[in-house]
């Protein structure tokens, strides 16, 4: 089966998408990024709905960027599915094969079988507006797969669903993506979707790829503030000299593992402890800080601190009450060196 190798360059007034994207056959790659990062543009360029200004798209060694979308054999699941409202679920699924010259009766039999496989045999005759969100999502997926596409593209496949349906559909979708032999590119702004569904993540910011890797690498070693926030880590850039990393002005952090040169330092908010007075004893990283904001974060409270560095810290509500944490309150923050990882920038 075919592998995808693309360099997408699309220029719009004031925005440039310039991203390299690779996916092996059977691999699921998630394009993750904030709104306006160019994720959807990248997907539309792959599908041929937006022309490339530069670069190339190769699928199985064949250049396809000059080919019209209807001849690319690429399956697309659009964000709001775009099921044809005047056709039944069955006719929607049969549409692609019909366009590729499959006779009507066979296309319909095929579509009925595909719908039955995703548990929608009873809904085959329904119009899209009579389907629930989860059902419409499955019809859209089956419609895209019905033509046996060489590449499957999904644009925010779960964004239109409520939380409960989302869980079920995500599991469903995982199974289907595993069954697709070609490469799959998935666009999402939800890190959980990306990590659950994809083998590899490509982080897109301002039209550029800022980081790629599997979920474990991305979650433990973020390289931009966006990714750090996404995975819930404090992230700083600095210069390392052994265990010591100078992150801001004179301020240095002691980290686990020696590094040299430009590095990132990352640690989870839960690794930061707060005290009313300067703590005695072990932690080597202590600094005075001021509470800037107190936010709910799951069962804990997330405290935003200013000081030599801005830090997020997670504390229990009990501790917060005991310390009297409220905006403006001065505290001492401490971080165990073993909790702070550093890695080359």
């Amino acid at each position, binding site marked *: 089966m075919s592998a995808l190798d693309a360099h997408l360059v699309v220029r719009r007034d004031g925005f440039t998408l310039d991203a390299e994207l690779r996916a092996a056959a059977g691999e699921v790659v998630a394009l993750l990024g904030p709104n306006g990062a160019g994720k959807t543009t990248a997907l539309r360029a792959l599908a041929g709905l937006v022309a490339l200004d530069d670069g190339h798209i190769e699928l199985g060694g064949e250049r396809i960027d000059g080919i019209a979308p209807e001849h690319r054999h690429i399956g697309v699941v659009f964000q709001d599915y775009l099921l044809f409202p*005047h056709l039944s679920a069955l006719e929607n699924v049969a549409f692609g094969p019909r*366009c590729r010259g499959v006779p009507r009766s066979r296309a319909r039999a095929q579509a009925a079988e595909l719908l039955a496989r995703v548990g929608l045999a009873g809904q085959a005759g329904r119009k899209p507006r009579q389907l629930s969100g989860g059902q419409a999502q499955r019809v859209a997926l089956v419609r895209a797969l019905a033509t046996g596409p060489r590449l499957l593209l999904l644009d925010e496949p779960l964004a239109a669903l409520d939380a409960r349906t989302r869980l079920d559909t995500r599991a469903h979708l995982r199974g289907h993506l595993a069954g697709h032999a070609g490469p799959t590119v998935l666009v999402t702004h939800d890190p959980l979707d990306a990590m659950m569904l994809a083998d590899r993540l490509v982080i897109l910011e301002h039209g550029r790829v800022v980081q790629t890797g599997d979920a474990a690498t991305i979650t433990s070693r973020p390289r931009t503030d966006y990714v750090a926030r996404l995975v819930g880590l404090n992230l700083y850039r600095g210069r390392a000299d052994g265990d010591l990393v100078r992150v801001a002005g004179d301020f240095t952090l002691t980290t686990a593992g020696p590094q040299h040169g430009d590095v990132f330092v990352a640690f989870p908010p839960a690794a930061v402890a707060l005290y009313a007075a300067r703590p005695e004893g072990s932690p080597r990283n202590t600094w005075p800080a001021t509470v800037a904001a107190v936010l709910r974060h799951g069962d804990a409270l997330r405290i935003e601190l200013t000081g030599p560095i801005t830090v997020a810290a997670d504390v229990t509500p009990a501790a917060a009450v005991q310390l009297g944490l409220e905006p403006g309150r001065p505290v001492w923050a401490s971080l165990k060196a073993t909790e702070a990882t550093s890695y080359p920038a």
Partner: protein
Amino acid sequence: MLAALRLSLLTATLATAACLLLGVPLAWMLARVPFRGRRLVRALVTVPLVLPPVVGGVALLLVFGRRGLVGGWLDATFGFSLPFTTAGVVVAEAFVAMPFLVISVEGALRGADARYEEAAATLGASRWTAFRRVTLPLIGPGVAAGAVLCWARALGEFGATITFAGNFPGRTQTMPLAVYLALEQDLDAAIVLSLLLLVVSVAILAGLRDRWLGAT
């Protein structure tokens, strides 16, 4: 009398068919394809709305008349002359009624989500297939409404028809012309004819509206 009614219904229907054939692609171009001079074309399409129909008839004569731009060539090549024929009636009616269709269909196209066409393209549909199987059904009510308006306008057409096609009974004398003629000779007959035209057109419009537009 009945000959005029039959001719009116026939020419109005043919004019509507001609408008559909030319007007739907034109509306699609105006709504979907950005090209230079689109605003000018859109303005030209609506010109027959503001032009007095008689002026429209004169314009048609200048183009399709025996010495006209296109008419001279038609006459020389095919020995065929459009003015003062039943075909001329159809052309005059289509000319005047076209804007009603184009404006309705263009509006419907603008209201329809163009991304459905993109979805169809990713499924392997050519532009024509996407238009026929996806866009056209989506804008069906708009096309039907435009066709009804177009037909109604063509049925009532008077000025361009009498100027371009004349007033020959059985050939170019449509109902409105017959009414006008009767008015000069026999007022009662004119009233009867007017009522007949009114009843027939209301009956047809009511029937079409219920069937095509699902009006309440």
